[in-house]
């Protein structure tokens, strides 16, 4: 199967997961929000931990079953800087690729559109700078 068809299938599954969560619990599947509130919010979080457990278990299950064990490609120092930026940025920016990029855009939210355009543009510039520094 062509990689783009796999990606389309993956997208449809992500949409199905979003459907399950909103139809079942009435919540958006925004992963940064689920993770941040599960760990650092006094609110009732049983369902958040259950979702995260499914995400972690499912990730391993499907990666092994379909031989999709992809390695990280950044050096450790860069991974730490990137992780801090992603964690801090998604909390103050109210979401990430799932919350803004899927749920927010699907709900035609202007906040999400502005977020997606901003993080995609900055992501593209960042990769361009990385490539330039690596001399590619």
């Amino acid at each position, binding site marked *: 199967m062509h990689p*783009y068809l*796999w*990606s389309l*299938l*993956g*997208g*449809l*599954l*992500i*949409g199905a*997961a979003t*459907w399950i969560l909103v*139809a079942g619990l*009435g919540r958006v599947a925004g*992963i*940064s929000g689920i*993770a941040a509130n599960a*760990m650092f919010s006094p609110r009732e979080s049983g*369902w958040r931990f259950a*979702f995260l457990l*499914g*995400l972690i*278990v*499912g*990730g391993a299950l499907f990666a092994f079953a379909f031989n*999709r064990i*992809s390695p*990280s*490609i*950044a050096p450790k120092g*860069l*991974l*730490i800087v*990137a*992780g*801090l*930026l*992603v*964690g*801090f*940025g*998604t*909390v*103050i*920016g109210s979401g*990430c*690729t*799932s919350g803004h990029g899927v*749920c*927010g*855009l*699907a709900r035609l939210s202007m*906040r999400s559109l*502005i*977020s997606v355009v*901003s993080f995609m543009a*900055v*992501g593209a510039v960042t990769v361009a700078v*990385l*490539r330039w520094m690596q001399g590619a």
Partner: protein
Amino acid sequence: MAQEKQRLLVAFSSGLVFAAGLVLGGMTDPKKVQGFLDVGGIASGRWDASLAFVMGGALLVSYFAFRSVAASGAPWLASRFELPTRRDIDTPLVVGAVMFGAGWGLAGYCPGPALASLAFGGVDVALFVAAMLAGMALAKGWQSRG
């Protein structure tokens, strides 16, 4: 409480299906993610459009998901929908997205794929996730400053 167990099972299932989508769609491969963000490679044919297909598929289904639930009265296992309501465009929204985009480009991981890779990604993914959680804690602290 039977309903609480059902709620946890539904949330777990959603996470499981979400992970299947991320893995099969290629989102847990940082090289593919950077390949998509590498728009400078469009002209030379080096660009990897995979992520656009992931987003397209996800948006197609979730658009109808939110439309259909908007027409229904309440979720199966909760008294009401708790969907985001804010509509204001403020500075933290944009600054946060800029920081997130920079981190996403540097590592090739956003929160979902990083967590879905946690059990097989070794020390590298564990470091990223630990730093991400630290960043979240810092931001929560900064938000609740007096």
